[in-house]
């Protein structure tokens, strides 16, 4: 059979075809048959027969590739250069694998609803297939198709001009793990391919705070000295009590096989508790006791629990004395005698306000009895896992919630024991993560700011104080220099759509002189770009997939199909730009294994990097499987001697003074670093952070009596199940399965005279979005829920018709850099406008140049 000449042209006619049309056109298509139609067979209506059976297709194991919370196997079944079908792990694609193999040690990595829909994304009409340059106004979405040469010449010239005119901080890199999470083709906020390229180029303002969990990262680093405070999934199976604090794995699939092991815990009698403003599917599945809590008040409730535990002597004093600094007066370091310790803060010895359950109840809306009951459950059930998830940390003082959780985990001795939990960030097993070149340029930057402050910086330059943008300190003359931002690069990131306070971003972006968007599809961010560069998806390039924070396996990601259209990988684009800007010297420094021809033929070079990486895996991780065998097998699943539990070695050895990676070597509830910081304006945090965890009142919340007169609802914006942030928003299957809607409690809806299906506008002083209403008993009164990631779709008046919550959020991060996504007051009323669930035909007409089906 002949290969189709142009796979794209071929797909166009065959993917969306219905069978009657397909048969009409079958003579014309016979040359390059997608599905193996045998022209000699009798034609029947809708007869796809012989439909492509798996043994007529080439089977290629690969994986999904986004920043969702897990990493599962996808198995592509292809004919020629077209993926006809995707399936998932069935136990075969591993060492000693066989169909149906699914064990406690090596469970199958079964893909979720998003992964199983991936073919719709791969072949979506929103795919970017050619380089484009803007011809209209920013955001208008008018582009013309250009050659790679023209696009890259423009980008290279502008980069040089901007660097030479405005200095080494004029270009911001906004790279995120959205599209390229592999060992080689890596988009990463700090050390990815883009950051290294711009650092080497000599013009880079980095964005240091991570939207998902900066408060949590701060807490884990300050308290434990590391973000590797996580257990592997299987440790959950040994818990007697699991407290899901704002955690909903049924939506996020956090961890590769969380369901499997949590179910096992339940079967062994584990009790589950959910603390969350909304009742979740996870709570339902595990029969959890739901404690509805006012958003942003988690730290207060935890303080109330700590008070109960201390005053009833339920804490593990031996654990505290051995491993913890600053939990009480006895564990304060000598140099800090007289400074505040955690227990005396909780008991109210400094401010005459004991943080009793009754005190906490007033703040967080949970009854004091429930707080006591939960405190007792947690302190007396051993082992118990308090899983302090990330989302409650995405608030005005998010780090205080995570630090307070760490204090509870430590005082009950649930750290370093199987079935306990110290998460936090929750990074567990350590993977060999880097196959791309890694050197002194890996994280070179000339300014680094809190990520959602770029618009503030652009709009107010030069009248910006360093603490307002969280400027990271330096030891050279660039310390404290406010960056004069003139350009942005987006790689693997739809940040314009995903950062806070979008209307402020829109005002800021018009002041920029270069905006480059590198992505595999058009995105709301892309509409605001000057240059759109089409990037190959992970099906179209060679790589290896890493587990995402939890899991101990590698999945081979071969180049399943050739890049669609003129797509290139990020690595190809940066290498080519390096050659264009700095000739062979820059080119070879950036990509040492490649010559100029890498832009046209990347395969041998990519293979060479991956082979080197595999050698590291073999020598560092005791893997005997050869690279060739790994490629043929599809995945490598590690078998660990026992479930990986963070800090277990330290706790089991019961070493006095511990070996935590903090400056004291202990779990620092009282932080040495914070206590010794004299001038917070000179730190990246910018504003003071107390040395011990404390409840600090957020700037917008339901306890703010004045503000709720105007804006009576607190809005939270958790992850949806049917998207990974903004990725997959354009997938028909998922669109048909779920609606973007505002969730509201029935009693609130009654008061407002609203019912399910009404179109409402959600608004505050920062913006407004239009969205259908869903009335439920599963959400606490006073709180509304709107899932993040809808694709921005502005009407003439600037209102967002898609229901994107970030037109309402505030671009004011916490001192530690936590995005305040969940610190939002708003109001809701019935709207005359029509909600647009996606970019409908009118909206997509703006981007029609990207669409193959129009």
């Amino acid at each position, binding site marked *: 059979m002949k290969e189709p000449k142009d796979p794209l042209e071929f797909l166009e006619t065959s993917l969306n075809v219905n069978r009657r049309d397909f048969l009409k056109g079958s003579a014309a298509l016979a040359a390059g048959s997608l599905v193996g139609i045998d022209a000699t067979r009798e034609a029947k*209506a809708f007869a796809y027969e012989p439909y492509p059976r798996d043994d007529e297709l080439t089977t290629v194991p690969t994986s999904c590739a986004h920043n969702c919370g897990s990493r599962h196997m996808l198995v592509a079944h292809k004919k020629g250069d077209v993926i006809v079908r995707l399936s998932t792990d069935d136990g075969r694609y591993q060492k000693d694998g066989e169909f149906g193999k699914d064990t406690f040690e090596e469970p199958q990595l079964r893909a979720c*609803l998003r992964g199983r829909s991936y073919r719709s994304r791969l072949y979506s009409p929103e795919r970017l297939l050619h380089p484009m340059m803007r011809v209209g106004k920013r955001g208008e979405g008018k582009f013309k198709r250009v050659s790679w040469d023209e696009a890259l010449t423009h980008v290279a010239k502008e980069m040089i001009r901007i660097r030479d005119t405005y200095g080494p901080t004029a270009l911001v890199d906004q790279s995120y793990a959205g599209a390229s999470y592999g060992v080689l083709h890596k988009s990463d906020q700090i050390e990815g391919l883009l950051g290294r390229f711009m650092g080497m180029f000599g013009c880079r303002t980095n964005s240091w705070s991570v939207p998902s969990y900066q408060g949590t990262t701060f807490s884990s680093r300050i308290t434990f000295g590391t973000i590797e405070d996580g257990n592997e999934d299987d440790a959950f199976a040994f818990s007697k009590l699991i407290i899901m604090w704002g955690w909903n794995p049924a939506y996020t699939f956090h961890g590769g096989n969380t369901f499997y092991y949590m179910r096992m815990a339940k079967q062994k009698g584990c009790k589950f508790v959910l603390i969350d403003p909304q*009742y979740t*599917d996870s709570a339902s599945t595990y029969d959890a006791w739901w404690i*509805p809590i006012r958003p942003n008040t988690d730290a207060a409730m935890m303080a109330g629990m700590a008070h109960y535990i201390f005053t009833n002597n339920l804490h593990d004093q031996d654990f505290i004395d051995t491993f913890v600094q600053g939990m009480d007066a006895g564990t304060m370091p000598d140099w800090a005698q007289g400074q505040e310790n955690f227990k005396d803060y909780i008991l109210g010895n400094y401010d005459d306000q004991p943080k009793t359950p009754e005190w906490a109840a007033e703040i967080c809306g949970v009854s004091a009895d429930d707080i006591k*009951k939960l405190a007792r459950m947690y302190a007396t059930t051993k082992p118990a896992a308090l899983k302090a998830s990330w989302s409650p940390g995405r608030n005005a003082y998010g780090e205080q919630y995570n630090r307070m959780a760490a204090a509870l985990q430590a005082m009950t001795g649930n750290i370093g024991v199987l079935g306990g939990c110290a998460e936090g960030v929750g990074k567990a097993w350590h993977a060999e993560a880097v196959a791309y070149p890694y050197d002194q340029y890996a994280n070179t930057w000339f300014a680094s700011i809190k990520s959602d402050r770029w618009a503030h910086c652009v709009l107010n330059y030069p009248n910006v104080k360093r603490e307002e943008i969280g400027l990271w300190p330096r030891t050279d003359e660039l310390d404290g220099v406010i960056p004069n931002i003139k350009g942005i690069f987006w790689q693997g990131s739809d940040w314009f759509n995903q950062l806070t306070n979008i209307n402020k971003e829109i005002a800021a972006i018009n002041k920029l002189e270069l905006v480059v968007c590198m992505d595999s599809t058009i995105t709301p961010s892309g509409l605001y770009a000057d240059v759109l560069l089409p990037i190959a998806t992970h099906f179209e390039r060679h790589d290896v997939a890493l587990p995402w924070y939890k899991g101990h396996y590698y999945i081979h990601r071969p180049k399943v199909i050739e890049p669609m259209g003129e797509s290139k990988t990020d690595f190809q684009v940066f290498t080519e730009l390096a050659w264009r800007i700095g000739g062979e010297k820059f080119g070879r420094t950036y990509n040492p294994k490649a010559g100029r021809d890498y832009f046209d033929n990347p395969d041998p070079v990519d293979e060479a990097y991956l082979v080197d990486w595999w050698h590291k895996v073999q020598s560092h991780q005791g893997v005997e499987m050869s690279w060739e065998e790994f490629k043929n097998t599809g995945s490598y699943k590690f078998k660990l001697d026992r479930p990986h539990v963070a800090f277990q070695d330290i706790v089991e050895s019961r070493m006095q003074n511990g070996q935590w990676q903090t400056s004291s070597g202990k779990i620092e509830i009282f932080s040495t670093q914070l206590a010794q910081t004299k001038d917070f304006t000179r730190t990246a945090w910018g504003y003071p952070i107390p040395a011990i965890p404390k409840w600090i009142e957020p700037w917008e919340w339901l306890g703010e009596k004045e503000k709720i007169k105007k804006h009576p609802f607190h809005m939270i914006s958790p992850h949806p*199940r049917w998207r990974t942030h903004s990725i997959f928003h*354009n997938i028909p*299957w998922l669109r048909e399965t779920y609606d973007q809607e505002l969730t509201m409690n029935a009693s609130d809806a009654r008061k407002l005279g609203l019912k399910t299906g009404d179109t409402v506008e959600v608004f505050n002083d920062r913006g407004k979005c239009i969205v259908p209403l869903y009335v439920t008993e599963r959400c606490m009164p006073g709180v509304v829920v709107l899932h993040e990631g809808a694709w921005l779709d502005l009407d003439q008046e600037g209102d967002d018709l898609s229901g994107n919550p970030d037109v309402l959020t505030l671009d004011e991060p916490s001192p530690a850099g936590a995005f305040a996504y969940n610190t939002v007051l708003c109001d809701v009323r019935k709207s005359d406008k029509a909600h647009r669930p996606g970019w409908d035909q009118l909206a997509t007409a703006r981007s029609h140049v990207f669409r193959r089906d129009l």
Partner: protein
Amino acid sequence: MTQLALVIDLNVCVGCHACVTSCKQWNTSGWAGPLPDQNPYEADPSGTFFNRVQTFEIGKFPNTETLHFPKSCLHCEEPPCVPVCPTGASYKREDNGVVLVDYDKCIGCKYCSWACPYGVREFDEKNKVMKKCTLCIDRITDMTLPEAERKPACVLSCPTNARLYGDVHDPDSEVSVAIRERGGYQLQPEWGTQPANHYLPRRKVRIHIHEDELVRSDNPLVKEDLAALPEDVDTLDDVAW
């Protein structure tokens, strides 16, 4: 006679929809496809799905419950959709009990969907033909596959293994055992349709935890007798679930 069917464990399902998209993935590219999408980019996107998850909410705040209910054709032993079909397009296979539609005979009159008490027939608006779950007939009868792999796509995809598949007429099959031992039930048996698919009910877990399980053996509080529960305090099992 063999009667193939699904048995779905509602106690395990988290409502994740992986079965929904896996079903669509397999069937839109297989014998029973395509499964077209209508207006995916406009208001009220809809499309053809052989398998859907319906979600029900129970109770009043804060004592709420959620039930996810995956539903596809139940492959009735007495399928009401078959006798109403004017063209004989709707039929039940004699060898394995799977209810199917012959697209070549179907005229799209929708009588069968009126007759079906479960609302599981899926009209393909694009091709004007009635479609429905085939139990992945092109997989389960594909003799080129090893027997272990002849399972519907949804069963192979479920991340929580909530979906079982087999012959409900064979008393020793996995599905029959599950139905017998775990209270498997049919949907609306009063219709007399005898659906072959069964559901395993939600079960609340109320397991009493033993004292020695609660307390870590090396916990110093035990030695000092500080961890004993005061008698007037609620225990774990008194929590209002």
